[in-house]
């Protein structure tokens, strides 16, 4: 046989700005959202939700709803409890964690405003909603635990029967762990001749606010029960549905079709999903539930919500010697799927890129009468990064040195990698010097500092501030063994299949389930390069447990670094399998077969076969070597050896109007290092989106409850997701320090922008007015808060973020989170 296919001389796919395969259906409106699904005989559900944060249910009268037009049934908590116990909690962080049983429909007590108390099933969605209004629930209101600090002191109990709001106390101490020194010693030493920075920071409650509301359809009429859900985790969901409902896993198929964003907010097994299963099975009919936006904001999980008490110790020259972190983390009324573990993820990142020798972390998780918190873009790492990057800038200010200088003095240098941190992680690679140098140059750092000085000296009403964040994060969750040691309920591996079809096309299956990240495109690029086939010839399938038969789904920036690596391994197995077949067909020795650019050649000759020809030969199977199985495909399940640690330097310039408190972003530069980039276009897109979310935490977003625990920000009028007009164009670039823990040399990017940008922005806002005596402004830095900080400081340093009189500045938008909405929940300001 002779060569019939020459290897195409094309540029490598990896690193190329490929336009996305996904786009065609999305830009033409042919998208498969869960809410688009219509099945014969399908019924619709509407939820009756509690208006109270904490109340006893004294009676529920469903008769009027039941009698209403086209209503099939009305179900209450007692009904559901017959078939379904508590919702799962997959991450008990301590053996003695207090975990209240979480019924999907409240039985005799509601624990947050928005909790489901009854479910109406009707022929149309409108009829279900109409009838839901007729369900008459009587409540006996109970005192609600709303303020995090008060809740931690057990002043009011979220669950009176538990006797406490304290769920778990999780502690890490470097001296005990043997990874570093004693923090109390470091602090004592710093008090005596060094510098101690003590701060209290509030991580306000945020709402993931994915644009597609959650939606679920269950069809119980087939051999299997099929659930379509707007979820990030179809595989985990299937397992947990089976485990909780006692249905055989093989009888459940979960499909995550096109999913309109998640950001951690769809990393959940929701009450609505369990209720849909129970009702569909009971009625033997397909059912659908799609939440409204206000339901989504109220009852899909929230993120962040921590009080951080921080003590940073340093020598007089700015060398940091220790950090002590005490956290209160608001879990909401139940411990959700992985919510309890979110602060634990953060525990490992408070030391960030710095090599200080002593570290102590203690987190108390607390139950309150609000919806549960869980993963939100970055999950634990943004909270940690915010704290340390704010503290480093405070230390610089205290010492009167440039904040970049302080960072440089304390960071792990390029030569020191790999580096074991005080929190016990091994950072494989990093080059903070390179990213910072590039960012500084792009930003025009020195010129902007000069302008800042000019404005200060001139007493300009509009001051300029420069904010810095040199961040790292831990992503690509993760080695299963490590997750096990943290008591996380699942592994961290990912699965992939690569199947050569007889025509030479390639079908790729991944257990990572996309919700906007562009897996179909990036994964096609990886496989096209590995197998030497055209990008267009690769088809990526995902998000359906019947097709992608195993996997651990998409969160924590793991799809590419874990799932992509699984693909590489599966593709390599295909090549290995093909080699003896090629040798056999070419009548050569296996040792002489070389694979390159899609062609199996015989060394030293021009003989060879293309991979498509081998694929066809293995399909026909007329002439295979003895013992070789027909068909050319492979599976690989990859468990990473380590997390990976993207890093970067973000610089932000903010203008702050000292007369009105109005802040506006002048410039934002970020240089991220995520190792090798598969698709620069997709990476830039994720960075932009991530920045928008992190900036939103700094400036706009906050879940606000009133005194009775009602979510005030329960619509897009009140929950300020930034618009195009609220943001500027960012300047993004990268440096490349390949990861050493995967063959692609790549690191995760999905959360980087969010993690890095929040402290960069707040550092800039504070920097703009620091000379007026301001050392902190509570997030979000609304004009009102900035004005208070500036004026409070000017009048002798009263608490910058609270006060009684609430003058209104700017437009209506600027004051959406107005004083009226300010709750006991954030009575304390920055607390210095």
């Amino acid at each position, binding site marked *: 046989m002779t060569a019939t296919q020459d290897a195409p001389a094309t540029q490598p796919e990896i690193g190329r*700005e490929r*336009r*996305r395969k*996904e*786009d*065609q*259906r*999305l*830009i*033409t*409106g*042919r*998208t498969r*959202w869960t*809410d*688009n699904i*219509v099945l014969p005989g399908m019924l619709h559900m509407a939820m009756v939700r509690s208006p109270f944060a904490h109340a006893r249910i004294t009676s529920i009268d469903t008769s009027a709803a039941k009698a209403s037009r086209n209503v099939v049934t009305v179900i209450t908590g007692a009904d559901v409890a017959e078939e379904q116990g508590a919702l799962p909690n997959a991450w008990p962080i301590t053996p003695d964690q207090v975990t209240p049983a979480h019924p999907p429909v409240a039985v005799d007590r509601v624990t947050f405003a928005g909790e489901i108390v009854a479910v109406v099933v009707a022929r149309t969605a409108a009829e279900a909603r109409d009838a839901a209004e007729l369900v008459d629930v009587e409540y006996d209101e109970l005192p609600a635990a709303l303020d995090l600090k008060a809740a931690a002191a057990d002043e009011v109990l979220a669950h009176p029967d538990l006797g406490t709001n304290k769920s778990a106390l999780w502690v890490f101490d470097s001296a005990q762990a043997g990874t570093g020194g004693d923090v109390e010693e470091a602090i004592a030493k710093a008090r005596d001749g060094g510098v101690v920075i003590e701060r209290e920071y509030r991580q306000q409650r945020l709402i993931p*606010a*994915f*644009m*597609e*509301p959650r939606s679920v359809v269950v069809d119980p009429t087939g051999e299997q029960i099929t659930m379509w859900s707007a979820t990030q985790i179809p595989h985990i969901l299937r397992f947990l549905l089976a485990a909780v409902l006692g249905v055989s896993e093989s009888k459940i198929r979960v499909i995550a079709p*096109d*999913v*309109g*964003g998640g*950001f951690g907010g769809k990393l959940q097994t929701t009450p609505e999903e369990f209720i849909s299963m129970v009702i569909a099975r009971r009625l033997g009919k397909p059912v659908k539930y799609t939440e*409204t*936006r*206000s339901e989504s904001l109220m009852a899909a999980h929230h993120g962040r919500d921590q009080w951080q008490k921080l003590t940073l110790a340093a020598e007089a020259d700015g060398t940091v010697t220790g950090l002590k972190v005490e956290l209160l983390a608001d879990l909401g009324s139940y411990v959700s799927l992985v919510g309890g573990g979110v602060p634990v993820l953060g525990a490992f990142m408070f030391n960030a890129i710095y090599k200080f020798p002593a570290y102590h972390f203690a987190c108390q998780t607390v139950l309150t009468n609000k919806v549960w918190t869980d993963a939100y873009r970055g999950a634990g790492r943004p909270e940690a990064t915010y704290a340390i990057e704010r503290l480093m800038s405070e230390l610089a200010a205290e010492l009167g040195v440039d904040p970049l200088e302080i960072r440089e003095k304390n960071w792990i240098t390029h030569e020191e990698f790999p580096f074991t941190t005080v929190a016990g992680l091994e950072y494989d690679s990093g080059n903070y010097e390179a990213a910072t140098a590039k960012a500084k140059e792009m930003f025009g750092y020195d010129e902007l500092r000069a302008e800042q000085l000019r404005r200060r000296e001139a007493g300009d009403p509009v001051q300029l501030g420069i904010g810095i964040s040199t961040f790292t994060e831990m992503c690509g969750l993760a080695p299963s063994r490590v997750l096990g040691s943290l008591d996380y309920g699942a592994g961290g591996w990912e699965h992939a299949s690569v199947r050569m079809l007889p025509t030479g096309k390639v079908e790729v299956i991944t257990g990572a389930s996309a919700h*906007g*990240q*562009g897996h179909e495109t990036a994964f096609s690029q990886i496989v096209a390069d590995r197998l030497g086939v055209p990008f267009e010839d690769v088809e990526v399938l995902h998000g359906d447990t019947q097709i992608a038969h195993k996997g651990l789904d998409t969160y924590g920036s793991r799809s590419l670094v874990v799932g992509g690596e699984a693909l590489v391994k599966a593709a390599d197995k295909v090549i290995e399998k093909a080699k003896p077949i090629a040798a056999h067909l070419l009548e050569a020795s296996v040792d002489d077969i070389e694979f390159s650019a899609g062609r199996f050649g015989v060394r030293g000759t021009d003989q060879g076969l293309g991979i498509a020809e081998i694929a066809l030969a293995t399909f026909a199977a007329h002439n295979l070597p003895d013992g070789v199985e027909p068909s050319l495909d492979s599976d690989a399940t990859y468990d990473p050896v380590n997390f990976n640690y993207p890093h970067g330097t973000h610089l932000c310039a903010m203008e702050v109007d000292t007369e009105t408190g109005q802040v506006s972003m002048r410039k934002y530069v970020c240089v991220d290092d995520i190792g090798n*980039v598969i698709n*620069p*276009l*997709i*990476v*830039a*897109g994720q*960075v*932009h*989106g*991530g920045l*928008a*979310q992190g900036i939103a935490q700094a400036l706009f977003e906050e879940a606000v409850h009133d005194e009775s625990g009602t979510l005030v920000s329960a*619509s*897009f*009028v009140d929950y300020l*997701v930034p*618009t*195009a*007009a609220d*943001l500027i*164009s*960012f300047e*993004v*670039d*990268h440096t490349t320090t390949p990861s050493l823990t995967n063959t692609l040399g790549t690191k995760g990017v999905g959360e980087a*922008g969010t993690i890095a940008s929040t402290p960069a922005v707040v550092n800039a806002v504070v920097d703009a007015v620091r000379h007026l005596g301001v050392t902190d402004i509570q997030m979000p830095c609304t004009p009102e808060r900035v004005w208070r900080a500036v004026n409070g400081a000017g009048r002798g340093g009263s608490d910058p973020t609270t006060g009684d009189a609430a003058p209104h500045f700017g437009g209506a938008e600027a004051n959406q989170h107005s004083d009226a909405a300010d709750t006991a929940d954030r009575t304390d300001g920055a607390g210095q």
Partner: protein
Amino acid sequence: MTHVTPDVPSRASEQGSRHHMKIELTVDGAKVSDDVEPRMLLVQYLREKLGKTGTVIGCDTSNCGACTVHLDGTSVKSCNVLAVQADGGEVTTIEGLAQGGELHPVQQAFHECHALQCGFCTPGMIMQSIDLLNDNPAPTEQEVREGIEGNLCRCTGYQNIVKAVQRAAGAPSGEGVTL
């Protein structure tokens, strides 16, 4: 630039029962007539009655713009218009945009500039952008930002959407994105 409900006079015909009203309209070039409940929103009509699920619902307060379509050539939030108000009108949805298999230049620009991620906001964003360009064929960055202010996107940070709109307008600033 208007991106909220224009002042659409109610054109619902007089006949029809109290609970249903007869409407006739053109949707993506096809004439349709129907009996609808007066309370039915245009977006519900498009999705539930016509199966035009390209137009989506992202909020219940007319703030997100996901449901944006064109009514008589102008963008409207179809969750903010009753189906009966569209009677006699001409509606274009994302599904009627590509003509003869050819993408509309704005659709093409969204693809080229990677102006979408999950794609949920995308149909509304594209419809709004077209309306914006009809009013202002060469918008500045700030004009684009203000023009799409009524449409929320959670994934993209808007930057590439702005580029796409400018690219569709033929502006050089709409060229490639870098990282």
